[in-house]
């Protein structure tokens, strides 16, 4: 039996509630009655819930599990490291992972891959890992998709975890996709909430879609493990408990078996970015309203004073006032700092989707009616070249 959706034409009043509820544009009112486009329908049930006269019914196909799910136990966190340092997103995932593991009554494990990194295992245990699998080998010194994805996929096949969490970083997003493709399982990108349904042991993965305009809760009901990536700053960091005990499992790699078709030649640091905007707590961003590239000197002065990073709108980047690596928004980076200060940024939707989950938003703009000023926690109306120096002075006063 395939999935079926039926509209009771006697009940349908053609009100269009289903049409606006459908996230996929698959249902529309034609000649006073709702019509479903079978190509687009994903059988999510949004229209069924939205229909005020209960004219829509849906039957979902009963599909068998792809694997024996009872064999899959435990929660894993991929302990991403770069240049030998554990990424802060890992501590955030360990915090969430340990909560999920407690609910499921299973251990929490961390997977550490790199070179000369064994000493970091205790750090992961202190942050909540019960077990750490360590792959420490000179050929793993720098991240490359082939060997990293082979190792993680092989370990998953061997140990069968039910949940694997990874950072939604450039590294995580790149090779998590390969791992999920290899083992034929679901991977949900950029989750902002993770919860377990104890009855089915399904992970309810909530993520923004359509540029953050809607949220979707995604399940991987028939496959295991359930893989998810999570951005920086979505969860709070696990606190370190010195001397916590756990098991360290040192794994060796079979150099003959590991494929590595790419060659790492070198790393070139971005000299302009002292602070990485993806994991900064405070971001001061400049836009078209700066009027000229010199404005970023003022932006940087405020950012430095606050220990934050410098961001920019697309307009500022396209005008060549600052490098693309600073761009926040849909075609740049998505950020969620504690404080986001938007200076001379009007708040086009493409910019807003990249920063709207920041805790506190401060907008400085002459135009008090622009979207950014309407959305911000605190909006300061006026000339940024007068207001920013005044803020710098005030902060210096406070700090003494």
């Amino acid at each position, binding site marked *: 039996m395939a999935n079926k959706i039926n509209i009771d034409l006697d009940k349908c009043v053609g009100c269009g509630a289903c049409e606006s509820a459908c996230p996929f544009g698959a249902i529309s009112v034609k000649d006073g009655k709702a019509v479903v486009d079978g190509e687009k329908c994903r059988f999510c049930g949004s229209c069924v819930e939205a229909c005020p006269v209960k004219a829509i019914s849906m039957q979902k196909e009963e599909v068998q599990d792809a694997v024996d799910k009872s064999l899959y136990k435990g929660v894993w966190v991929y302990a991403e490291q770069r240049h030998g340092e554990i990424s802060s997103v890992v501590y955030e995932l360990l915090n969430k992972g340990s909560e999920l593991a407690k609910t499921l009554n299973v251990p929490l494990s961390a997977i550490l891959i790199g070179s000369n990194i064994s000493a970091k295992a205790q750090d992961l245990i202190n942050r909540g890992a019960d077990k750490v699998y360590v792959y420490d080998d000179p050929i793993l010194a720098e991240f490359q998709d082939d060997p990293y994805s082979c190792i993680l996929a092989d370990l998953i096949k061997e140990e069968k975890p039910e949940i694997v969490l990874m950072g939604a970083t450039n590294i995580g997003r790149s090779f998590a996709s390969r791992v999920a493709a290899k083992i034929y399982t679901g991977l949900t990108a950029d989750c902002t909430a993770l919860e377990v349904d104890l009855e089915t042991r399904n992970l309810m993965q909530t993520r923004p879609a359509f540029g953050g305009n809607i949220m979707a809760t995604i399940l991987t009901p028939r496959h295991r493990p359930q893989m998810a990536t999570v951005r920086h700053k979505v969860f709070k960091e696990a606190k370190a408990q010195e001397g916590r005990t756990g098991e360290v499992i040192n794994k060796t790699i079979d150099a003959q078996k590991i494929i590595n078709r790419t060659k790492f030649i070198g790393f070139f640091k971005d000299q302009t970015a002292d602070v990485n905007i993806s994991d900064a707590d405070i971001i001061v961003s400049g836009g078209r309203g700066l009027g000229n590239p010199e404005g970023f000197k003022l932006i940087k002065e405020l950012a430095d004073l606050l220990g934050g990073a410098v961001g920019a709108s697309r307009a500022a980047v396209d005008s060549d006032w600052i490098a693309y690596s600073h761009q926040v928004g849909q075609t740049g980076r998505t950020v969620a700092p504690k404080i986001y200060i938007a200076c001379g940024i009007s708040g*086009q939707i493409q910019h807003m989707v990249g920063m709207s989950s920041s805790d506190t938003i401060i907008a400085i703009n002459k135009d008090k009616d622009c979207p950014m000023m309407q959305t911000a926690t605190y909006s300061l109306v006026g000339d940024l070249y007068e207001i920013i120096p005044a803020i710098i002075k005030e902060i210096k006063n406070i700090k003494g």
Partner: protein
Amino acid sequence: MHILVCIKQVPGTTNVQIDPERGTLKREGVEAIINPFDEYAIEEAVRLKEKVGGKVTVITMGPPQAESALREAISRGCDEAILIGDRAFAGADTWATSYAISTAIKTIPDFGVIFCGKQATDGDTAQVGPSVAEMLNIPHVAYVRKIEEVTENSIKVQRMMEDGYDLIEAPVPCLLTVVKEINTPRIPSLKGKMAAKKAVIKQLNAAAINADTKKTGLAGSPTQVKKIFTPPQRTGGEKFEGEPQDIAAKLVKKLAENSLI
């Protein structure tokens, strides 16, 4: 070299708005566009062709309407186009999409470099490119911001990372996902527009690519959408107006009170 570029048709995002009364997505008047990141992929594919010779085939999976995206890609310099479409592919998640695309690419015997945009603006997953590479059993490099060198057998690229870039050498065939920084896409030429009008789009359905329909579409997708909802909208907060010194002082006081600084 036979260069491929995989693109996606997405809703024109500037028009995506929430209906304030119903709290749902407004769809009226939302035009379909080429995913913005894919424009950089198309441009880079065409530049590579201009450098090393050969041809560019643009590929998409989607409903018949997606043909317009393929024609636009031809107007920007691609030579041939393939539309992968079948009812059996409808409702695919990233795994099932990657399966259908990679299975279609397997019918092309001589491909060299495959380009993809780093992600699509509707789903924002960045997963299909690397997954297609895995299923084709070729290496990939994601977040490419520059091609430094290229020969028939290898390509040297800059991979954008959070803290700078990595220089990576990959053999050909391989797949690259590209970021905005890589180029400035050209405007379609008159000659390109003529070619786009005349182009014959190759249609491939599930049978033509010999796809296992247990692995396609909604049925073949490991992930399923359980629920869709509108996030709570941020409502504006406090507005400070007046002399710069005064409002700056008010703001800093607020931040200090809330232990934000």
